[in-house]
């Protein structure tokens, strides 16, 4: 089977290992290391594996964000995506999941992929909405929090195993469909230097939200951002007996 085109959404976020700082009511993102959202790496990896298994014919990486998001697309290309689309927004512009889903919908109508894979959530806004919003806008089936993807019925349908509270479940849906990747789906590869070099020559199309006729005005306004309350930790106990006594009598948790 061939001919399945896979669209993968990727986002440039502050690297997961960075301890973020809240300065003046904002999360400081200038001069902070950014990288591809970890769940999106898993999404790209899955799409590239589908291509390697000859299930998919083409992998398209798509991002919405400022000029620097191109680095993220180059990473996706180096991991094995065939081409990339960058919907460029102004630096610092707040683009919310609903608007991202509308932009994705516009691209999907142009590119008509048979499968769209996104990460289950971005580690910056932690919304976990874009895949479901997109599925709702398109009225396509959704396989969220996927830990396994297979194809069945002469490649016309997808079998998605999902991580649900307390276990796993498997759904079957006709293509086209939306899948969001969970941590267990796969182990993403590292881009090798030759592939990073090759990625520089792969096509990268640039568009703007107005090219796609999408209004980015958000309906959710961020009033303030603050640091969470600090924990007053640091007390030490001398023995297991003292620990049990404190948990029983002071904390009342056992």
């Amino acid at each position: 089977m061939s001919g399945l085109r896979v669209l993968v959404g990727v986002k440039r976020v502050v690297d997961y290992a960075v301890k973020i700082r809240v300065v003046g009511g904002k999360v400081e993102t200038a001069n902070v290391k950014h990288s591809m959202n970890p769940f999106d790496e898993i999404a790209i990896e899955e799409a590239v594996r589908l291509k390697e298994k000859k299930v998919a014919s083409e992998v398209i990486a798509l991002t919405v964000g400022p000029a620097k998001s191109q680095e993220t697309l180059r990473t996706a290309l180096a991991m094995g995506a065939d081409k990339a689309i960058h919907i460029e927004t102004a630096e610092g512009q707040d683009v919310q999941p609903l608007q991202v889903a509308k932009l994705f919908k516009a691209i999907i109508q142009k590119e008509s992929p048979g499968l769209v894979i996104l990460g289950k959530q971005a580690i910056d806004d932690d919304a976990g909405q874009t895949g479901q919003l997109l599925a709702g806008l398109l009225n396509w089936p959704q396989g969220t929090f996927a830990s396994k993807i297979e194809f069945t019925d002469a490649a016309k349908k997808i079998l998605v195993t999902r991580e649900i509270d307390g276990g796993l479940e498997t759904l079957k849906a006709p293509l086209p469909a939306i899948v969001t990747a969970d941590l267990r789906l796969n182990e993403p590869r590292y881009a090798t230097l030759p592939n990073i070099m090759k990625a520089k020559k792969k096509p990268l199309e640039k568009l703007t939200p107005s090219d796609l006729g999408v209004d980015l005005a958000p309906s959710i306004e961020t009033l303030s951002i603050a640091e969470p309350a600090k924990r007053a930790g640091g007390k030490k106990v001398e023995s297991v007996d003292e620990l049990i006594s404190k948990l029983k009598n002071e904390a009342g948790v056992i």
Partner: protein
Amino acid sequence: MYRTVCSSLYQARLAANRSVINLSIPKNYKSTLVLIEHKNGKLSSSSFNAVTAASQFGFPVTALIASSPSTAAAIATQTAAIAGVSKVVVAKSDVYAHDLAEMIAPLVVETTKAGGFTHIIAAHTAFGKNVLPRAAAVCDASPISDVIQIEGVDTFKRPIYAGNAIAQVKSKDPVKFITIRTTAFPAAAASGGSAVSEDSTVAAAQPLAQWVSEEVAKSDRPELASAKIVIGGGRGMKSGENFKMLYDLADKLGGTVGASRAAVDAGFVGNDLQIGQTGKIIAPELYIAVGISGAIQHLAGMKDSKTIVAINKDPEAPIFQVSDYGLVADLFKAIPELTEKISK
């Protein structure tokens, strides 16, 4: 199609009410719909937290149940008894049997339209996260995820950057689709309510997807994300076999076991147990970190726990900075001793 109907209906409704009553919020146009989560004929614990959150708006709370006909009556009875629920709407159909978002989201949309609800609440569980944004998209609304505090009818607090910052957000959508963090809202009382129950008039949507099978963990232990007591093991556990010690302690306490990424990467346990920024975010009553140094990625997943205990042989481990009680000791001696001495 839904989108236009949804938003124009609300705008008209809001405008009509505003013209009648100025200043004070007219009670009759605001009402809250809470989506009930259930499994095998029993309400999920998250449903009780969701009702508490829904009640905080101060408007009448209607509970929506989507269920297969076989369990609908039992679920409706349990829901009607929850304190704070004033009405129960029951949608019975075989297509609702497996919580498919493709079937339940249209039901939420149609129920919202018909009832004029302004706030749609679900718990931020695998179920709520799956269904609610899909319904919101159809109504052209931006959902608000993982809310930890309701400050007003349109203002909420939610964690971002894995809990390292708290954003205060204001929704301008006429209908607000909200998932709430269960650990941030107490459970509503399971009895004391006397809601009226009625059958939904919404026709079930055409199935888009099909449920095939499930593998539910057969453990009697509570699920990691909602467990009241969690024992987390880290690199210091040294091997997967040694996690048995933690399971023994968890069983004694009625809790469950999780792990740091280091323990997962070392192959001690599967990554479904991972607590942290890219794993599960938990906030139990008691978290016991065993052989975990306390890297920021791990702290992001557990620092909202009510009481944190750290057991580590390194007195300089960062975990001691956030733990309420720290014990500097060899875990291989301390854990068996703790298990033996704790009596329930």
